[in-house]
């Protein structure tokens, strides 16, 4: 989150000087991600572009994918007809764009499936994604630990997810509930927002009104969290602590300052886009990952969700978006 866009891309620079970094044969990467009016997706696109720019042998053909799955299908169709070396695709919905992935693979273009998974294993060459379930688990575990250590046995826990009809939201909530269940806790009230600050404010206001006493709340997304924090301030409440999600720079700073109810955030980093572009280049050039024995890039990579707290905030400051 920032008022001046594009200054904070997460890029792997070539300091290590390993062999893979040496310029190789030219790779054209087709890139498609949904229309971004949300900080996280904007960061995904920015990261991909910045990472591609860091390589002299990579050309990124970015295709904006419009507002829904159908638009993205159309965009990918035109992308395929232009025959890039590799396609990196963050689909609107993995299941809905499964067919598009299959089509590209059939046309001989390796597909790197970013973040939202295609169900068919034949639809991608590499899948690199965050761990939504794990994110919920991490948030739940943190909250459970904190409450347990405070000796609260019957806590009131609130949850503010993002757009509720998305599968990723469901996975996060499931992970959250699973972790809480191990402590014998459960969510008292759940008010979804829409990944925007104003909807976050509305949802949080409603939640606070419904729970005059609360011990902890998990807000799935740091961007909408700006509104959530504002609502908490407007309601003049401080009887609980809050955990965020995704790991925005503003959230990390706030955690470090320890000046608000926000005590932690669980990551879901858009840096995966940078990694995807790096690996797309390797796949295009037929190279493997140096630290692995395998000659080729593996088929699936899942980022783990980490918990950022006051203690480790410094280390993560650079990864905030």
């Amino acid at each position, binding site marked *: 989150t920032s008022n001046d866009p594009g200054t904070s891309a997460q890029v792997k620079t070539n300091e290590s000087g390993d062999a893979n970094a040496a310029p190789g044969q030219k790779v054209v990467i087709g890139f498609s991600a949904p229309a971004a009016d949300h900080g996280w997706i904007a960061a995904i696109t920015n990261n991909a572009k910045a990472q591609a720019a860091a390589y002299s042998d990579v050309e990124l053909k970015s295709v904006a994918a419009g507002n829904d799955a159908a638009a993205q299908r159309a965009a990918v169709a035109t992308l395929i007809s232009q025959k890039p070396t590799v396609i990196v695709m963050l689909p609107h919905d993995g299941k809905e764009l499964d067919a598009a992935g299959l089509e590209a693979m059939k046309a001989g273009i390796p597909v790197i499936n970013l973040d939202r998974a295609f169900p068919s294993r034949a639809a991608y060459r590499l899948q690199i994604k965050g761990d939504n379930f794990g994110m919920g688990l991490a948030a739940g575990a943190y909250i459970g630990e904190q409450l347990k250590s405070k000796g609260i046995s019957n806590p009131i826990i609130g949850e503010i997810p993002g757009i509720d009809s998305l599968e990723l939201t469901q996975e996060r909530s499931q992970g959250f509930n699973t972790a809480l269940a191990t402590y014998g806790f459960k969510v008292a009230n759940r008010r979804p927002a829409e990944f925007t600050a104003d909807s976050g404010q509305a949802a949080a206001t*409603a939640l606070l009104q*419904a729970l005059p006493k609360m011990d902890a709340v998990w807000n799935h997304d740091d961007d909408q969290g700006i509104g959530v924090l504002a609502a908490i*301030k407007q309601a003049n409440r401080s009887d609980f602590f809050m955990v965020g999600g995704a790991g925005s720079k503003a959230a990390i700073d706030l955690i470090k300052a320890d000046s608000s109810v926000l005590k932690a955030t669980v990551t879901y980093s858009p840096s995966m886009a940078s990694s995807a572009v790096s690996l797309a280049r390797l796949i295009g050039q037929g190279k493997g990952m140096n630290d692995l024995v395998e000659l080729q890039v593996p088929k699936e990579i899942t980022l783990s969700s980490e918990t950022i707290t006051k203690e480790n905030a410094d280390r993560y400051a650079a990864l905030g978006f």
Partner: protein
Amino acid sequence: MTAEAVRARQRRWNLDDNAVRNLGLVGVLVVLVVIGVVTRPELYADPTWVRNNVLTILQQASAIGVVTVGMTFVIVGGGIDLSVGAIIALAGVWSTTLATQSYGALGMIFTALVVGLAVGVVNGVLISYGRLVPFIATLAMLVSARGLAAQISGKQTQVSTNDTINNLATTRPLGIPLLVWLLAVVVAAGWVLLNRTTFGRRTVAVGGNPEAARLAGINVKRHTLMLYALMGLCCGLAAIMLTSQATSAQAAMANLYELDAIAAAIIGGTLLSGGRGTIVGALFGVLVFSTITNLFAINNLSTEVQNMVKGGIIVAAVLIQQFRYRSLTQLLKR
């Protein structure tokens, strides 16, 4: 029966026309509150909570309420504006750029109002002088304005660092949130403007029968333009209100406000085809929606159940209101 008697009855009937509709909405509100009391008695047992809850409902209704007042004018004047959410987003984003924020709170407010007004004027010009159908012109504006907002914000959520702005949402003169005062002022001004001024009279005429208005010497095009400009101004104000509430603005903010505002206006008794509408009804319409949201929250309904129930409540609200309306006028008839 004597002419006098007829007239007296007639006047009574007319008086009750809108009042009865509003009464129906008050009934709906009461029913919603009663459901709340019955389902969560422990919450309603606490007077502080109740007072807070009322203020929360009002505060959450404030921005959309301001938009609905503007929308009522546009619809009464025979138009429609689908771009209100987009205008709010554009005004909000524009007024929270680093450059604008450097001018301080007044600069930000000024920017939001001017951007809203300007977009409204463009809408108005397209519709009145370009002769575009309002639906199409404002739909195009919706798409364009959101695009421009995304461009300006770099698709980032822009945080407001201006304390004056951010505090608007937390200030409570006389114990009532400033935003609620603002809503009250806008509603009162809207009521006077619609019912007691020549501007309002022209609005009704232009929406009710544009040809008749034109032949009576009213400048229909200019008036239409002014209606959309007014709408834009309301959106600019709402943008400030929302920005202060969320302490930030972004291109996707105020999503689908157009539908909410139109629905609230219509439920309040405004005729979608123009020529008739009430500001008080619009306010009640907004409050019904805001109260429904509150009711769902305190009962922790899941989104999908919420949605299913919400559709039903809307239908029921209109039916109740219609039923009351019909049966009451029936009674008055005898």
